[in-house]
């Protein structure tokens, strides 16, 4: 195929017909829900997250009504506790984070000129997990069983089953399930940004939105797993009475606070950065010029991401930690103002240097910056420990966090909504309604939250269900309540605007005359994402590259056809986006939904202590995952390579470090290793909290012998797998299989060997935090040994079934990545529980 072939309209029509058939969404009442295309899944995701936002907003209105006047009795204290807990949890876990994932799933392939993200079924799985978990957690309030410990669930009140009901379990297990879907989205987005860029889109040409998403997805990998580790410990205490947070048995409630806030503070930036990323797309469009200071934005995103992991203790200033520790975190909290300010200045300077078009999206963007800056400034105040001691747990903090989140997340998302609605639906929203809504929200937010600074400074504590009239706070609270209803009116106007959209005229293509790739989308959009994958030479190709839109539309770039009837996209190299291969993408399937259902069963059934059914659900999940992998991954193609146009021929199969599957495994294991380091942190945290750790009567447990045996077995399994990979790649199929069999045996033997130490030395985990944390580390490592055995058996089966050959060895290469991390986990875990007591 040469360039000139595309001059033939008949050929182009035939190509379009093939693409249309390949990318056709499944039809029918039930089948349509099996779709995996990013457009559909992204839309479901956005709508669901938006619905949760409205739900949590209603909860807030009930709270504000209760607080409107002193000594009100609209709701009782128990209900009020459920309301504020669910409001915070839903806004954070079911709105802000999923909304970022949802928007990215819609936008990223468009921005990168890809047909879809590399793992469309994983996105669908993430969506179904989110939906099931979200409905489970939110629905609990209708049964008066919602969590009521505040959105950060501090023990010991929440871990003592006599003081808290099922709500704590619902929170812990329901949200753990949603955290799984966040990690899944992070994998998808990182691999998408690094490997699915169009040819020529080097790192310096990447849309800034993609930079932000890359940074935020990496943050998720390091932020969510500590919370998962905390959840594990929390549920072990609630369900099995292992005293991690019980001070009377050597535990410490502060451990939860550490693990929660190591997640919780980066979380703030995880929801802020992707929203501000929308500005990086719409500001140049409405300034009618390239964004100034591109590397400064990269500095801001990367710098904020790092610094945000050094802030968590500023939520714990009032817990009595040594002042020197508070000083470190106070310093980092002040430092993070630098990159945050840099990006705001970049946007201001770009607008200043451009010819500004005052559109509705830009109105939201500038208004939200004003609100955000106020929240940022009070943030600088509460980052100073002495001020924080005065303001801690008062309405001042409530005001601060709402200014940050409304200015940094909610309103930027509305800016994005007005900006990108034409991209998704082909129709513009109403400027009149949009501006009305903006002013209602802007005025309402200030009326609602500004008085809270004052009521907080005058001594109103947060999370109280009512207050006496003598306090003199009635006026300020009434103002806040009125403000909250004004915000609600603004949001109602937006909802009205959205509801009227189906009856509106189609907008022209690229209605804002933007310069970035996503605006190639056609109002009557085809499902295929992009007609042909372009060669990128500029940050704003629609503005700068000659005849760009026409060439894309006429299929004059890469991969303009789907000859083999498969969904495909191009994989390129990380730094310079050189084409590496063509991958086949997953087609619509029931598997993601069924797997999410099975996994949801594990979490939900455990909540109700139905352990046998949960176990059945767990086995079903494993079976689903194996079936999914066996039928949908590392497929050996019918031919080694295919042409993508312009005389380029790309392989259809790659394995190892250049392949998306390898990266997905690597990224997942980074998250896994981070969760493990959270548990390990727990061990050493207890050590610093006790003069004697291990306690003298348990100093000999679990001993050195069994942990070292287990470590040897793990290392043997690791070496065997690496050797199997190498020998297999050189054609030694039989020897490779034998080595895998040996590795399988050592992994299986590692399970009892790992548990033998604590078991044979009679450690009772319910007596003290020391045996509890030793058991936890041992069980975690043994579970990983069991998973290693399953993976080795899987690879062996693939080889025996002829689905893995020396030239098509993605399976064993990916499993080797797992084994590297497993060996590291085993080394850290067994060295800690076996050897550390000798030196402590």
């Amino acid at each position, binding site marked *: 195929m040469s360039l000139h072939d595309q001059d033939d309209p008949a050929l182009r029509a035939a190509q379009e017909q093939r693409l249309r058939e390949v990318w056709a969404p499944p039809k029918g009442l039930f089948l349509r829900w099996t779709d995996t295309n990013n457009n559909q899944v992204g839309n479901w995701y956005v709508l669901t997250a938006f619905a949760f936002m409205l739900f949590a907003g209603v909860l807030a209105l009930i709270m504000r009504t209760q607080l409107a006047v002193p000594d009100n009795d609209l709701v009782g204290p128990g209900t009020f506790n459920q309301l504020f807990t669910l409001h915070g949890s839903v806004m954070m876990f079911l709105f802000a984070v999923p909304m970022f994932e949802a928007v990215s799933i819609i936008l990223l392939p468009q921005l990168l000129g890809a047909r879809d993200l590399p793992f469309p079924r994983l996105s669908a799985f993430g969506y179904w997990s989110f939906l099931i978990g979200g409905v489970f957690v939110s629905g609990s309030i209708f049964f008066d069983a919602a969590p009521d410990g505040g959105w950060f669930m501090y023990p010991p009140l929440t871990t003592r089953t006599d003081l808290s009901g099922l709500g704590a379990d619902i929170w812990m297990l329901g949200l753990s399930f949603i955290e799984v879907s966040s990690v899944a989205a992070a994998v998808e987005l990182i691999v998408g940004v690094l490997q699915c860029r169009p040819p020529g889109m080097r790192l310096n040409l990447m849309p800034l939105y993609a930079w932000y998403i890359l940074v935020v997805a990496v943050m998720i990998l390091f932020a969510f797993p500590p919370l998962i580790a905390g959840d594990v410990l929390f549920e072990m205490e609630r369900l099995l009475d292992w005293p991690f947070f019980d001070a009377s048995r050597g535990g410490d409630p502060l451990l939860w606070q550490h693990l929660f806030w190591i997640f919780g503070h980066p979380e703030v930036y995880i929801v802020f950065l992707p929203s501000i990323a929308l500005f990086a797309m719409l500001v140049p469009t409405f300034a009618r010029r390239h964004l100034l200071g591109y590397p400064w934005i990269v500095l801001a995103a990367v710098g904020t991401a790092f610094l945000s992991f050094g802030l968590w203790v500023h939520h714990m200033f009032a817990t009595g930690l040594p002042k020197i520790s508070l*000083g470190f975190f106070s310093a980092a909290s002040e430092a993070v103002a630098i990159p945050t300010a840099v990006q705001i200045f970049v946007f201001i300077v770009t607008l200043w240097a451009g010819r500004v078009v005052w559109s509705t999206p830009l109105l939201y963007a500038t208004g939200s910056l004003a609100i955000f800056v106020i929240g940022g400034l009070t943030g600088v105040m509460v980052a100073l420990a002495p001020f924080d001691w005065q303001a801690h747990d008062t309405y001042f903090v409530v005001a601060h966090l709402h200014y940050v989140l409304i200015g940094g997340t909610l309103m930027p998302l509305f800016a994005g909504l007005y900006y990108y609605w034409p991209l998704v639906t082909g129709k513009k929203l109403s400027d009149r309604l949009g501006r009305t809504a903006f002013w209602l929200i802007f005025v309402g937010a200030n009326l609602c939250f500004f008085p809270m600074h004052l009521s907080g400074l005058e001594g109103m504590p947060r999370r109280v269900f009512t207050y006496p009239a003598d306090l003199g706070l009635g006026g300020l609270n009434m103002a806040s309540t009125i403000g909250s209803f004004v915000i609600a009116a603004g949001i109602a106007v937006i909802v009205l605007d959205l509801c009227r959209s189906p009856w509106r005229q189609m907008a022209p293509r690229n209605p804002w005359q933007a310069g970035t790739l996503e605006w190639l989308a056609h109002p009557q959009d085809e499902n295929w994402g992009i007609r042909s994958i372009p060669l990128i030479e500029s940050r704003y190709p629609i503005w700068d590259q000659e005849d760009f839109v026409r060439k894309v539309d006429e299929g004059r770039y890469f991969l303009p056809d789907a000859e083999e009837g498969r969904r495909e996209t191009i994989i390129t190299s990380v730094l310079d986006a050189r084409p590496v291969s063509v991958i086949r993408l997953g087609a619509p399937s029931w598997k993601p939904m069924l797997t999410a259902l099975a996994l949801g069963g594990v979490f939900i059934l455990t909540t109700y202590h139905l352990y046998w059914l949960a176990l059945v659900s767990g086995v079903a999940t494993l079976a689903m995952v194996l079936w999914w992998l066996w039928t949908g991954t590392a497929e050996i193609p019918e031919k080694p390579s295919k042409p993508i146009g312009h005389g380029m021929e790309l392989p259809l199969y790659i394995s190892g470090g250049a392949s998306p599957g390898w990266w997905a495994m690597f990224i997942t294991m980074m998250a896994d290793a981070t969760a493990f380091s959270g548990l390990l942190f727990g061990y050493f945290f207890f050590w610093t909290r006790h003069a004697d750790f291990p306690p003298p009567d348990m100093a000999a447990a679990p001993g050195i012998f069994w942990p070292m045996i287990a470590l040897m077995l793990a290392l043997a399994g690791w070496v065997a797998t690496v050797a199997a990979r190498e020998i297999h790649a050189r054609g030694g199929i039989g020897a490779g299989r034998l080595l895998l069999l040996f590795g399988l045996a050592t992994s299986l033997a590692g399970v009892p060997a790992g548990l033998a130490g604590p078991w044979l030395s009679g450690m009772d985990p319910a007596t003290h935090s020391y045996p509890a944390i030793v058991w936890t580390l041992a069980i975690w490592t043994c579970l990983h040994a069991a998973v290693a055995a399953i993976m080795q058996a899987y690879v062996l089966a693939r080889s025996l079934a002829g689905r893995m050959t020396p030239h098509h060895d993605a399976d064993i290469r990916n499993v080797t990545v797992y084994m590297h991390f497993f060996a590291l986990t085993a080394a850290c875990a067994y060295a800690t529980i076996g050897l550390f007591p000798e030196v402590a």
Partner: protein
Amino acid sequence: MSEDPRGDRRKWHERLQVTLWTLIVPPTVWAAHFLFSYLWAAISCAKQGDFARFPTLFVAGTVLALAAIALSGWIAHRQVRMPGSPPPHQDGTDIDRLRFLAKATLLLAGLSFVGVLFTALPVVFIGDCR
């Protein structure tokens, strides 16, 4: 210095490969120093109950971190000045990609340097574990 009249004989810092990994060297050093500071203070306060006014370990760690960030920043600074098209580095060429990454690394080095100094300051002003 970087404009070597002998043509393609490049300096050692110009031959270093610049990737996403080198981009995050300065903030990673900040993170390592921050973790080190936190652990150092937490362990010395919990296990010894106190630390000396100018603890050698902490000073050494801080100097090491600042030196590593400065070195990374210096390399990036030299790479930013390698011959090629002027800023903004927005062409699809090797030199633009390199100079962009070097610029971002340089900026991150500046931020990380300030960050390490910020972290070190409390030790100067707070001399004990109260």
